[in-house]
């Protein structure tokens, strides 16, 4: 099975600081999507950001941005000016030609006041 790896089970960040969550994946395809999802205690999965593999430009959504390194198969999420509401479990995911979405094991982010 093609895998998505999140090597940081837990991270913490001080409010207003910047944090980077790591994700690596494997694939033999050239056309795919990458995603970061947030899951707060309410359990609702929320899409944070998406990246299309054919686009070289890194995606940005307000305080959230990615560093997409296609050759290295790396897709990290940077959260700037962290807020208490950013505390959640974050999942990295990849889609591919089989239409499946494969998720990593998640990173629990704590934001310290």
């Amino acid at each position, binding site marked *: 099975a093609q895998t998505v790896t999140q090597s940081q*089970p837990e991270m913490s960040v001080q409010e207003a600081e910047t944090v980077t969550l790591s994700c690596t994946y494997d694939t033999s395809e050239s056309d795919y999507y990458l995603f970061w999802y947030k899951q707060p205690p309410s359990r*609702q999965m929320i899409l944070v950001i998406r990246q299309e593999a054919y686009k070289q430009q890194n995606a940005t959504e307000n305080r959230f941005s990615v560093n997409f390194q296609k050759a290295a198969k790396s897709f990290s999420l940077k959260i700037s000016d962290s807020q208490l509401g950013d505390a959640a479990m974050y*999942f990295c995911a990849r*889609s591919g030609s089989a*239409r*499946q979405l*494969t*998720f990593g*094991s998640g990173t629990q982010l704590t934001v310290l006041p």
Partner: protein
Amino acid sequence: DVKVTQSSRYLVKRTGEKVFLECVQDMDHENMFWYRQDPGLGLRLIYFSYDVKMKEKGDIPEGYSVSREKKERFSLILESASTNQTSMYLCASSYSTGASSTEAFFGQGTRLTVV
């Protein structure tokens, strides 16, 4: 907004019971998914469907089956519930561009406890 609705938020069933988890989406998405979420393991794909009456096994299909008779509805069936199927179950839907799935939209999850 896309809405994916799961029939129950919490469910308690007895070992050996047949359990149905229902999921409905309102955005005419062709792809629908059932995931199981356990601490430290992330989301693991049980089954997915890319069209009515079509289904594909995911990474952990054993002990589960699915049904998709209508495009908007995707059911997960536990034929004979066991305690190791106690978990959080998440339903999702998505559309495709070309051969790839775009982002998935999720239901609120069903926490199933088998006693």
